[in-house]
């Protein structure tokens, strides 16, 4: 019950990590402070769970906290640089407004855990204070931004962000704690962008086209520009980087340099990230299953794992060979900044906790705002499910523009998060692979013997009559 007091001097930050089932409450007692660019209200209780975050102040402030966390106070003068970048972007937005042109399109690059998402968050938050509506694009499928993991999203940010959340989720049918943010979402369903490069690029292209259409209609979105949070793998793949730069028409790149001390660890980090993905999948696949599991399932599991291992090896290999790319491009301004001292090292365990939390909140809401999802039981045969083809599979196909393949609904769906896309089950596969995502459903139980499937829907009603996409994302309650 006792409250701890933290006094921050100007340009200091207080970082905290709340892990496992711990809870933390933070109060701003006096002064002015922000969490990744979002100002805190004095006296309000901010509650945190499963988060690594930090409170920064330009002015000095007094905080109080209670609960369990790992915390530290750091000097963080580098934030002034971030603010200066914001003001440069703002100058560009003003120019765009005067010339009726396009605002800046900024791509944020950096190795794993260099604070890319935090930088993007801060920059969009600052922009909203200037009444701008910057469009935040997330290309990192591991990072659940306005969607459970596995998706590419574009979200105009028009109002304050919810600092208690990792980022945020789609709106609910009633007043919510923060203003609604409406995202355009294309699912990739997999968690490694290299597993199905063509599908990944296809989804990026669709997202970029959607944004450009929106910009054509909406001048405040156009002049406010775009901020793109990219996966670290983009630093190593020239082809993908070129693809991003041209499809989103990027005008600027910020590269976050890893701290010198961490530089040596770079290759190790990559291999660690490789193991990550294996862990995500293997633990989730080996979750205790019901007795209904049959041998088909087990075979499938083995196949899956060997495939995954294969693709991981390839991924690791390609990264080991490649050097960080030369980032000099015509018409693109590239700058380098150092990572901020309070950067969060998100290990695989933590990343999985975050992903889990976001999926749970997608259906059940948060502590402050409970939601009532809807459970239905239906026949397995009522589902029309596709999965992305892996890159080798695409290469083997005659028509290389086909990126999805139908999956026979079976026990393999158990625990899967399925993306509901805006296409009829009877539509051509090419229409389905180009359809935007409308939401997600969760397979609580798939019983092959009785041919029944129990599904959690976010929205009450029937099973949507849409095509579904399955991938790497699993969840069980």
């Amino acid at each position, binding site marked *: *019950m*006792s*409250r701890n007091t933290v*006094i921050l*001097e*100007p*340009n200091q930050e207080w970082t905290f990590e709340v892990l496992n089932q711990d809870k933390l*409450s933070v109060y701003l007692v006096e002064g*002015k402070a922000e969490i990744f660019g*979002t*100002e805190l*209200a*004095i*006296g*309000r*209780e901010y509650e945190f769970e499963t988060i690594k975050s930090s409170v920064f102040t*330009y*002015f*000095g402030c007094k905080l109080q906290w209670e609960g369990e966390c790992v915390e530290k106070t750091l000097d963080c003068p580098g934030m*002034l640089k971030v*603010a*200066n*970048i*914001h*003001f*440069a972007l703002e*100058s*560009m937005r003003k120019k765009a407004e005067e010339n009726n042109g396009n605002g800046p399109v900024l791509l944020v690059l950096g190795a794993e855990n260099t604070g890319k998402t935090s930088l993007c968050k801060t920059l969009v938050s600052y922009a909203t204070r200037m009444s701008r509506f910057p469009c935040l694009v997330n290309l990192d499928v591991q990072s659940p931004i306005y969607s459970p993991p596995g998706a590419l999203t574009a979200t105009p940010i*028009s*109002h304050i962000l919810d600092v208690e959340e990792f980022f945020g989720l*789609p*709106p*609910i*049918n*009633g*007043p919510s704690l*923060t*203003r609604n943010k*409406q*995202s*355009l*979402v294309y699912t990739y369903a997999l968690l490694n962008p290299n597993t199905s490069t063509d599908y990944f690029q296809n989804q990026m292209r669709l997202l970029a086209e*959607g944004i450009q259409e929106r910009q054509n*209609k*909406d001048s405040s979105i156009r002049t406010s520009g775009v901020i793109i949070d990219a996966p670290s793998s983009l630093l190593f793949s020239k082809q993908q980087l070129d693809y991003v730069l041209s499809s989103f028409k990027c005008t*600027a790149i910020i590269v976050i340099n890893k701290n010198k001390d961490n530089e040596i660890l770079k290759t190790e980090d990559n291999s660690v990230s490789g193991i990550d993905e294996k862990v995500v999948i293997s633990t989730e696949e080996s979750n205790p299953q019901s007795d209904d599991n049959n041998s088909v399932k087990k075979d499938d599991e083995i196949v899956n794992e060997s495939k995954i291992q294969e693709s991981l090896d390839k991924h690791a290999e390609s990264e080991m060979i490649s050097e960080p790319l030369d980032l000099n491009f015509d018409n693109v301004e590239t700058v380098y900044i150092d990572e901020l001292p309070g950067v969060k090292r998100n290990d695989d365990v933590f990343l999985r906790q975050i992903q889990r939390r976001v999926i749970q909140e*997608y259906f059940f*809401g948060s502590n*402050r*705002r409970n*939601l009532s*999802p809807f459970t239905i039981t239906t026949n397995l045969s009522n589902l029309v499910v596709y999965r992305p083809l892996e890159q080798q599979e695409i290469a083997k196909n005659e028509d290389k523009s086909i990126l999805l393949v139908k999956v026979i609904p079976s026990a393999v769906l158990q625990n899967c998060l399925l993306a*509901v896309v805006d296409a009829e089950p009877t539509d051509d596969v090419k229409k389905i692979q180009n359809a935007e*995502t*409308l939401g997600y459903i969760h397979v609580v139980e798939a019983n092959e013997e009785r041919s029944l499937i129990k599904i959690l829907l*976010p*929205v*009450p*009603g*029937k099973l949507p009559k849409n095509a579904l996409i399955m991938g790497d994302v699993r969840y069980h309650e």
Partner: protein
Amino acid sequence: MNREVYEDFTEALEDLQANSRPVIKTLTEIAAENVTYSDAVVNAISDHIKRAQAPQKLLGLYLLDSIVKNLGDPYSHLFEPVIVDLFSTTFTSSPEAVKPKLNDLFRTWTVPNANTGVPVFSPGTLKLLSDVMSKKLASKQHSGSSRPRINQTSLMVEINKYRQVLEQTTKDAFIEKQLSLLDRISVNITGVVDPKILPGVQEELDQMKTQFEAHSSKQRNRKRKNTTPDENIGNPHKQFQSHSQPLNTSLPESTYTNPRPNQQHESSNNDDGLVMYDDDTMEDKAPTVAPPANMTENLTVPAFNQYIPRALNNTLPPNLPAVLNENNFQFFQGLQPGQFNPNALNMISQGGATAQFDQSMLPNMTPMANLNPANNTLSNNNIGLEVQTQTFSKEPPQSLTEAVSTNMNPEFINRLYTDLSLQCPTCGFRFPNTEEGKQMEIREMDWHFRCNKDIRENHSRNRLYYLTLTQWINYKDEDEVYGAPESEEPEQKNDFDFESLKSQFVEVTSDEEKCEVCQEQLTSSWSEQAENWVWMNCIEKSGLFFHATCFADPENKDLVNSILAERGQG
């Protein structure tokens, strides 16, 4: 043993002389340790509140508040029978200026406690408390004559009268805020409303009036003071001395009424159940260091120079003020553009009541300070105040390359903060102090109000699907942020009659049934009318059960149809 605890605790209560968080915290901890003798503790506190002078009575209630909120049972149970008495005694004996504080305290009891999810006292007790206050407030305003029964029309009339009074008063930030609050209140009671909310609205209105009175009396005081500005702002030293004094009746009344200038109007939005106990170190910042908005405008840089040497308790040489000009005293610059930030002095005075300046804090506090070290005794600690005559660009950077290669002019930070001087007390979002900004702030508060109401009413909610590509391309974020033209929720709700729907019932047929729409379990109750157990607010269609209100809600029309259609097929 009970006796002993009673005596010990009574003695400990003697420490409760000032509004100090540490003391309240310690006493709460003692109460926690003595939970086995909780009735002795409760008696000690009750007797203390009854005996004490008015200011200490309030502090006693703050302690009580801390105990019931943090420790809960058995304390909340034990205080329950006596709280109405204690509260009403305190209310009667407190000066007018303190009453809003009691009102604020009461409000925090009406919302669910963060620890338990339910209010600290039972609805019956809260009702009594609210009666106590409305009666007291009413008798005050109508000088003894009891207020007629509140109804919607009379409330509207009263609101409009008050609006006229406000409109005839000289406009300032406070009045503007009151007007915007008034707008919000009148929106809430326009159209068909639940009569149960009226007393709450009345109370809010009464509170606003009280604040208005306090404000106008302060305005009058200020006018007097402004004729001798030196006394007011020119002598911070004198004000610092009062840090060491306990809170007592001789302090100016604004100490009580206005502890947080930004927050005083937000009580209806503050649903976090928080009462702010002031710390010793900042208990009297309000009247002196944080004058209301219209006054800070006079407190420009020259005024700092008078503050600083004294604030630093003469550790700086007398010639320092000469070098403190607009460009080189970045710390204070960064804090406020032409305004003085109360926190700065608090930071400085953090070390102790006598405002001793802790020199080790300086390097961090002045990250870009250019104090001239040539005649600066602070440098004897070797704390690295560099000799720089760095000048910052007056223009923001035009390119990223410029942004990363130059040092930012710290003044720019204010564009993200103090230049946007209106701030939503609930979420912290800022708005420019313009007509448009004010409108946005009103909408913002209204938004939080509706959201909190919705949460309290515990409507069942669910996630929505994303927009389709076409919908997204045509979506306007402006509608979300600036408000779409007239499509407020309450008006939709008025299309059907809630009360008559709620009285519909179905006799209980099985142990558990849930509403097909919201998935909530139906709760059974005994009906005299049906002489059976029934589910109230319930209807049955094709063997399925629905809340009558869920079923009738036009928003659920498609869903209900699809559920029934599915039932028809299967």
